[in-house]
């Protein structure tokens, strides 16, 4: 059985946010909606100060609290470990939003798709095409680029990363690069203590 997962090499990430841009380009998410992003944090005390970067994404948890909380069944888990949202079933209650410990779900209002565009009051040709893929009044999230993975390609953020800080693959395959790197470098899951069993790992 396949279980898609991702590992972030924190030593390699330079915080360029190319992944963020690639994701927005691939998925055409509305203004202010990010399926992935890299956050920065200043640590230390002058003069020993540094900035560290942490890429964030939906963790496609094995025991996803968002899936349990969803009252309509709109959030579901596929056989290959992807946690997805069926737009046609989502009623926009946002229970999944408050249930996700990683805060990686975003509610898209109907106004967001019509008025709150990149240039307020004007819809660009790109938005005209891409925003059609979203339904107003629903919650959206990262899909691990399901449409690309189905065709044998990697998610857009992985392909774009210039530092090769993102490794994508099958967590159930002991010979996959992602599984080998997690084993070799003691990869850890974010907020593992919550018991959600994320499919995302961090490598220090």
């Amino acid at each position: 059985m396949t279980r898609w997962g991702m590992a972030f090499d924190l030593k390699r990430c330079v915080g360029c946010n190319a992944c963020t841009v690639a994701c927005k380009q691939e998925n055409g998410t509305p203004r202010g909606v990010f399926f992935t992003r890299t956050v920065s944090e200043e640590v230390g005390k002058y003069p020993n100060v540094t900035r560290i970067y942490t890429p964030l994404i939906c963790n496609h948890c094995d025991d996803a609290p968002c899936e349990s909380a969803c009252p309509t069944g709109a959030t579901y888990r596929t056989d290959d470990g992807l946690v997805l949202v069926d737009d046609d079933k989502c009623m926009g209650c946002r229970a999944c939003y408050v249930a996700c410990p990683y805060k990686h779900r975003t509610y898209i209002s109907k106004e967001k798709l019509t008025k709150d565009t990149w240039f307020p009051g004007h819809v660009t040709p790109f938005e005209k095409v891409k925003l059609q893929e979203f339904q107003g009044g629903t919650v959206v999230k990262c899909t691990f680029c399901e449409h690309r993975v189905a065709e044998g390609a990697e998610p857009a953020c992985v392909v774009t990363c210039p530092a090769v800080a993102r490794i994508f693959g099958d967590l159930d395959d002991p010979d996959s690069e992602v599984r080998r790197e997690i084993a070799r470098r003691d990869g850890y899951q974010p907020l593992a203590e919550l018991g959600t069993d994320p499919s995302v790992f961090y490598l220090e």
Partner: protein
Amino acid sequence: MKTSLSYPVDNENFVMGFRTQTEWRWLIPLAFFLGGLGGGLFMISLVTGYTAGALVGLLIAVVGKGAAHFAYLGNPLRFWRAVMKPQTSWISRGIIAMIGLAVFGTLWVAMKAGVIGGADSGLLTVIAVLAGISAAVVMAYDGFVIATPPSIPLWHSALMPILAATYSLLGGTTLALVMAANQVGEHEVVPTSTLHTMELVLVGFNFALLVVLLTVAWSASATARESVVLLLSKYSVPFVGGVIFVGLGLTTVLALTIEEGSSALLFLAACGLIGDLLMWFTILNIGVFQPINPRARFAR
């Protein structure tokens, strides 16, 4: 490792830090308040046999809470799907309980009021039990909705369903007292002195519960502590002024000094209900997510 994670960074998409929940801000607290109030009033009325109170409780819980939820939904016409996953979702369970309350509660009120027959049969007892179970779930399920997922440490507490249930009972008791004092359902006998005592006990219990909840949160984790800090800074006016002073303090003073049946009970009710609403408003608005970077857990 030292970091500066001591304030929410809701408007900073690319900065690590605490983030508050920004979706359940007004209508959901209102829905929680109305559901608790209606469920509590129905429960009190069911136990005391107060038909008018039960009817008002039904209307508040089913119509009031239902309307608030309906207004909040992004796709309200799909609301019927909310009953699809009772095996895991507390929202589904709650909606099913609300349907149960609407059906069995209406039947109970109709039979008690003599609109339909069978008031003297065993059927009334069966319906009363079913309506009571439904009302109990409606009173407490909002607490389970926020307590079940581990996302927000302050909410992820076994005290939340208890808080929801006891605040529901307090609201229900307050409203039942006021209705009885103003002769709503004038031919009915309501044990007002018992309700008066119950009101005082519940005020004390709820205050103790809030103190325990916040004290535990303060020492539980950095994120839960951040919620308490928000409560005592940004939300200090609605919490200290509204929930504690008006909702619990003033209610206690009035309940101790006002004579039974006095019209000043209306003021007492207003204070109690304002505190009840603000309790949900503040508790939901101080929901803080844990930063995802594990390094941040050692920040404070």
